[in-house]
């Protein structure tokens, strides 16, 4: 069978894997790194991996380019990447691909297709799912506020774009205002508080990720406003507030095990397996029926972390078989 993209078949196990992170400090990243490290341990036991090199570009896409270049120079066998910019890395990544390095890109994707595989959930589906749930909650009409992630970043843009068709289809939903904040609780709380004062009537909040929902809920709470239906992500803080305040909520997630899965995929490709060029990971949905199963595992996760769904090799193989 034809080998995967970039793979030339000249590399032999055990492999050296490079993990080119854009920024290692946020908790989501720490958790992701945890799944990667755990996966590498597994693969080491199987004699497939000998080394893991980790870099942290400190949020600087330019530095990430430099790191990937250094990984090429150091002749690693696989590079796993969360991109700091959706297109800045295109050229250095295609260089790596030309060298026969297995390049697996997940979470923040690059434009170029010269990679072994891209692994991600679907941001548009995320936005659409959230908007659809909210619209159903509100019976298709009401005043809503849209809370976006930071401007100029593809992920926040994609989620917002994904929501648009649903919003268009429900003309009864009125976006009274829309704003951008970091994917963090404090700035979100701050922004939502200002919006609360400016808008006496709010029926729902379409929050598109991170700890933004937690910040919004706390803003409602602190200003003594009645909570409204709100969408969100699997941030532990949000899930706990959801339960504690009895919210009408909906959440999805960007599973941290995408990291582990990417390493697994890279090694599979190096081993000569054909892997799909794009692996779409279905979005797990958290709603009132499933939230308890997540909260039951809460104390295994950092308080400002994300409670991700379980994963195992079988799941990975199933995803690879798509």
């Amino acid at each position, binding site marked *: 069978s034809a080998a995967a993209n970039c793979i030339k078949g000249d590399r032999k196990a055990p492999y050296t894997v490079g993990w080119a992170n854009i920024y290692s400090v946020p908790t989501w990243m720490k958790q992701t790194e945890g799944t990667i490290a755990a996966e590498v341990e597994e693969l080491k036991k199987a004699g497939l991996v000998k080394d893991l090199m980790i870099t942290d570009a400190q949020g600087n896409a330019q530095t990430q380019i430099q790191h990937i270049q250094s990984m090429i120079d150091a002749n690693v066998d696989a590079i796993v990447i969360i991109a700091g910019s959706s297109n800045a890395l295109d050229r250095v990544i295609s260089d790596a691909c030309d060298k026969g390095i297995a390049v697996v890109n997940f979470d923040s994707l690059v434009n170029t297709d010269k990679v072994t595989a891209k692994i991600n959930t679907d941001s548009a589906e995320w936005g659409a799912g959230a908007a659809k749930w909210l619209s159903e909650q509100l019976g298709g009409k009401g005043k809503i506020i849209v809370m976006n992630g930071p401007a100029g970043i593809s992920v926040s843009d994609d989620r917002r774009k994904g929501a648009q068709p649903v919003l268009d289809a429900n003309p009864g939903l009125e976006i009274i205002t829309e704003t951008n904040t*970091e994917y*963090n*609780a404090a700035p979100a709380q701050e*922004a939502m508080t*200002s919006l609360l004062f400016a808008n006496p009537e709010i029926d729902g909040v379409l929050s598109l990720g991170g700890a933004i929902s937690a910040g919004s809920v706390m803003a409602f709470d602190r200003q003594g406003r009645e909570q409204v239906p709100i969408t969100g992500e699997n941030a532990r803080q949000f899930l706990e507030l959801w339960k504690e305040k009895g919210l009408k909520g909906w959440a999805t997630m960007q599973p941290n095990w995408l990291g582990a899965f990417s390493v697994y995929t890279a090694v599979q490709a190096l081993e000569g397996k054909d892997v799909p060029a794009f692996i779409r990971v279905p979005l797990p949905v958290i709603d009132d029926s499933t939230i308890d199963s997540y909260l039951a595992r809460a104390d295994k996760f950092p308080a400002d972390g994300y409670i991700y769904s379980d994963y195992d090799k079988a799941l990975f193989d199933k995803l690879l078989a798509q």
Partner: protein
Amino acid sequence: MKAVKSLFRNPPLLTLVLVALVWLVAGLTLSGFGAYGHLRYLLELAAVIGIAAAGQTLVILMGGIDLSVGAVITVTAILVPLISPAWDPTGLVGVALALTIATGIGFLNGAGAAYLRVPPIIMTLAMATFLQGLLVVVAGGSAVTVSNPAVLLLGQARPLGVPAGILLWLVVSAAVLLIIHRMPIGARFLALGANPLAARLSGVSVARNTLILYALSGFFAGLAGILVLGMNRQGYVGIGDPYLLTSIAAVVLGGTSILGGRGTYAGTIPGAILLVTTTALITVVNASPGWRSIMFGTLILSLLLVSGREARR
């Protein structure tokens, strides 16, 4: 006429008048802006910036700058839940420990600037980088929801309807104003800022004052970190980041010279309120992110045009 003239020579007062004007105009034109609760909330937000900018004001008055303010806020916000001992029902021990660490970080900044002669900007920037690394170690996989009662009280309590954070800010303001205007050390900071050589030859010890100052800056940043933690009930990495540039901007908007030697915390106070107000105004405007960014910049620039004139040569 004369009153107007003297107003323009008094940057703190001018900034305060500016705040009042902005509040008046916004309150009349935007629904909900002028509500008592909203203004109170703005002040509460300003308290964090104001407290962080307290140390920054002192450092800038002495001709330095502290780029580790944001990192220190983050470090404290994350450390308090971790180091608060379970046996202490008041939570004060944890707070004291965290403040000691923050002060210690500031002290190290001062030592680097004073003894290693590293320019403050480099020293504090390197310290911020260093602390980021430390956070990766400390914050990896640990709980950081705060249960410390003292911190929660600070963040949530409203004695007589006034948020505790604002009260803390009042105390800090009084202390800093006392330091600057009523204590010998304040006059020494100012002299060092305006002419370090002359101050040194007049018997003002550069090293000693640098140490005290950066330690104070660390302390106030730590205090701001505790307040932020109380207000958010959770510390996370990056929580302090927004306060670095805002603390500097509040100082400069308040009429303090970035070159040192001239200014007062009395200007920083309205400067902090002005920044928070501007941010709130921009948040409620329904426009694309690009336009909102442009409006924010333009607003700051126009406020500066009124308040920030440097003396003509």
